[in-house]
C-alpha cells in the first residue's frame, strides 16, 4: 500500500485560514471557549465527501481564500462559500471529492463574490495531522491553542495530511478525469444554502420579557438588521431598530450558547463560534441550532430577518438536519463503494 505521507504547503494564507472541527466541548467550565467551524454543516459535508468522520478538522477560510501547494494522491473537497477555486489554473468543482493527479499543483481560492457566502471549508481525506488539544483540533486563536501551532495559517507553513490512499484508489475506480491534474466524480453532496434570503429562525431568549413590546415586534416580527463590519468569529454585531428594556435591569453573568442573541446598547449581538463562555447582557433570542450554519455564512453588509419558531419546532429542524447528514453520508459511502 502506498503509505507516502502527503503534505500541503501554504503559498498564501488568505484572509483568515485556520484548522477547525466541530469544536472543543467539555472545557467551558474552565473558561475555555468552544471554537470550531462557523458553519458546521458545510464542515460535515466536506468531510463526508472525502470519506472522513464528520468531525475531522478541516481548513476554514474566510472571505478570501488561501493558495496551497498540493501533491499527487491528495484527495480533497470544498464546501461552503464559492471562492472560484482552481487547481493548476483549472476550475475545481465543489461539494465532491477531487483526487490530485499531478505531482505538484497549486490550489488557489479567490475571494467570495457577491453571490456567495463568507466561509469555505477544505477537507482532506485522512484529515490534517495536527494534535488534538483538549479533545479537539480546532484553533482557539486568542489563547493560541489547537489547530496548527495555535494560530491561523501563514505563508510557508507545511501541514502533514493523513493517509488518503484508499480514497484515492476508490476515485481512480469510480471517478473520471476532469482535467490534466484532477479526477473527480459526477455526483455531489447537497450544500448549505449560503445566499438565501430566508429568515433566520429564532426562539425567545431567556430575558425576552425584559424588552418592550415594540422592541419584541421589531425583532421577531418585521425588523431587518444589517450585519456590521464589527463582526467576526466571536460574534456578529447587528444594526437596526433600537431594542429597549421596559426598565433598566442588571443581569448577573450567566452561560451563553452558540447563537445566543444578546442586546447591548440597544443593538443585537449574535454570539458565534468563538464566543466567551458567559455573558452579562440580556438575551432577547436564541438562533435555532439548525440555522447556525446558514448564519455562519453571512458577511458584513448582509441583511438579516428573523422568524420566531417554538423550541419544539427548533428541535425538529435539528433532527431533520441530522437525518439529512446521515442520509448524505450513506449515499456517499454507497457511491464510493465503501463498506461493501
Amino acid at each position, binding site marked *: 500500500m502506498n503509505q507516502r505521507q502527503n503534505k500541503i504547503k501554504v503559498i498564501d494564507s488568505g484572509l483568515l485560514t485556520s484548522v477547525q472541527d466541530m469544536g472543543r*466541548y467539555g472545557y467551558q*467550565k474552565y*473558561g*475555555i471557549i468552544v471554537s470550531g467551524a462557523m458553519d458546521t454543516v458545510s464542515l460535515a459535508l466536506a468531510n463526508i465527501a472525502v470519506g472522513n468522520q464528520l468531525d475531522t478538522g478541516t481548513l476554514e477560510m474566510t472571505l478570501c481564500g488561501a493558495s496551497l501547494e498540493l501533491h499527487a494522491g491528495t484527495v480533497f473537497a470544498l464546501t461552503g462559500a464559492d471562492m472560484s477555486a482552481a487547481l493548476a489554473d483549472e476550475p475545481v468543482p465543489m461539494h465532491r471529492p477531487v483526487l490530485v493527479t499531478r505531482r505538484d499543483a497549486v490550489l488557489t481560492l479567490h475571494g467570495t463574490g457577491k453571490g456567495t457566502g463568507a466561509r469555505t471549508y477544505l477537507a482532506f481525506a485522512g484529515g490534517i495531522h495536527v494534535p488534538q488539544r483538549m*479533545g479537539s483540533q480546532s484553533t482557539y486563536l486568542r489563547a493560541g491553542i489547537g489547530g496548527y501551532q495555535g494560530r491561523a495559517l501563514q505563508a510557508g507553513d507545511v501541514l502533514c495530511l493523513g493517509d488518503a490512499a484508499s480514497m484515492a484508489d476508490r476515485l481512480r475506480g469510480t471517478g473520471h478525469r476532469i482535467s490534466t491534474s484532477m479526477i473527480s466524480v459526477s455526483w455531489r453532496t447537497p450544500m448549505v444554502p449560503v445566499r438565501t434570503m430566508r429568515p433566520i429562525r429564532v426562539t425567545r431568549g431567556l430575558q425576552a420579557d425584559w424588552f418592550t413590546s415594540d422592541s419584541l415586534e421589531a425583532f421577531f416580527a418585521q425588523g431587518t438588521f444589517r450585519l456590521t463590519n464589527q463582526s467576526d468569529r466571536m460574534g456578529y454585531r447587528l444594526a437596526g431598530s433600537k431594542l429597549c428594556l421596559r426598565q433598566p435591569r442588571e443581569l448577573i453573568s450567566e452561560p451563553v450558547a452558540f447563537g445566543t442573541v444578546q442586546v447591548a446598547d440597544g443593538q443585537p449581538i449574535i454570539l458565534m463560534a468563538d464566543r*466567551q463562555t*458567559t455573558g452579562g447582557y440580556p438575551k432577547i433570542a436564541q438562533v435555532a*441550532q439548525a440555522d447556525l450554519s446558514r448564519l455562519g455564512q453571512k458577511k458584513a453588509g448582509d441583511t438579516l430577518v428573523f422568524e420566531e419558531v417554538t*423550541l419544539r419546532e427548533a428541535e425538529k429542524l435539528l433532527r431533520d438536519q441530522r437525518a439529512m447528514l446521515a442520509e448524505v453520508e450513506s449515499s456517499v459511502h454507497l457511491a464510493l463503494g465503501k463498506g461493501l
Partner: protein
Amino acid sequence: MTATYYPLGEAAILVSLGTKIDPAVHEAVRSLSYALAQAPFHGMIEYVAAYTNVTVFYDPVELAKEQLRQTDEALPYGFQVARQHIAAILRDMGKSAAQEARVVRVPVCYGGAYGPDMADVASYHHVSEADIVRQHTSGDYLVYMIGFAPGFPYVGGLPKAIATPRRKSPRVSIPAGSVGIAGEQTGIYPIATPGGWQIIGRTPLTLFRPGNDEDPTLLHAGDKLVFYAIDEAEYQALQKAGESA
C-alpha cells in the same frame, strides 16, 4: 434545594438555584456541578457553573431517544428529559455533598513594576500601599465562577474598604498573572489580554496550562483563595521553580 428550570434554546437547560450572589447559592451551584461531573447523563455534553445557576448543554437528538412517562406538548422534549435527570440528581444530592472546597494560596508581588496601579489605588483611598496590601491579603475569597478567559476567576470577598473603580482607559495588554481590582471584585489575569482593572501586583503562578488536558486551569469554581505578599526575589524564584516543574 429549590431549582427553577429554563431552556437556553433547544440544546441547553439553565438550572437556577437562586437570584443573588451569595455563598449559600454558590454552595448549591457547586454541589450540582460536582454531581453532574460525577454522573453525567446520556446525551449531556457539558455544564457551566455561574454565580446563581448551572447550565447544562446537551444533544437534543440524543435526549429524544429517551421515553418520558408524561410529556408537556408546550415544552421542548429534550428540555423535559434533561429536567427530569437534573431533578433526580438534585433529589439524591443530600446524600453526597460536594467535596470540601480547596484552598489555593496565591503569592503576589505587590506594587512596583508588577502593580502599576498600586500608587493610584492607595491615593484613591488615602492610605499607604502597605495598607492596600494588608487589606488585600486579609480578604475571605471565594471563586464564584470561571469565565471571560481560560481560568479567569470571578472572585468575591474583596474588603469593601479597598473597592476601586476600573481605570478610565483600559490597557491594551495586561501581562498574565496580574492581580487586579475592579469595583468590589478582585481577579487574576491568566493570559495577557486587554483590560481595565486596577493592577496592584502579579503572581508567579501559572493559571492557564493548556498542556494539561485533564485540568487546564489552576483555579476552579468553588475554590477559596488566600493571597499572600512576596518580594521580587521570591517572585523570581517561584517563577523559575514553576518553569522547571
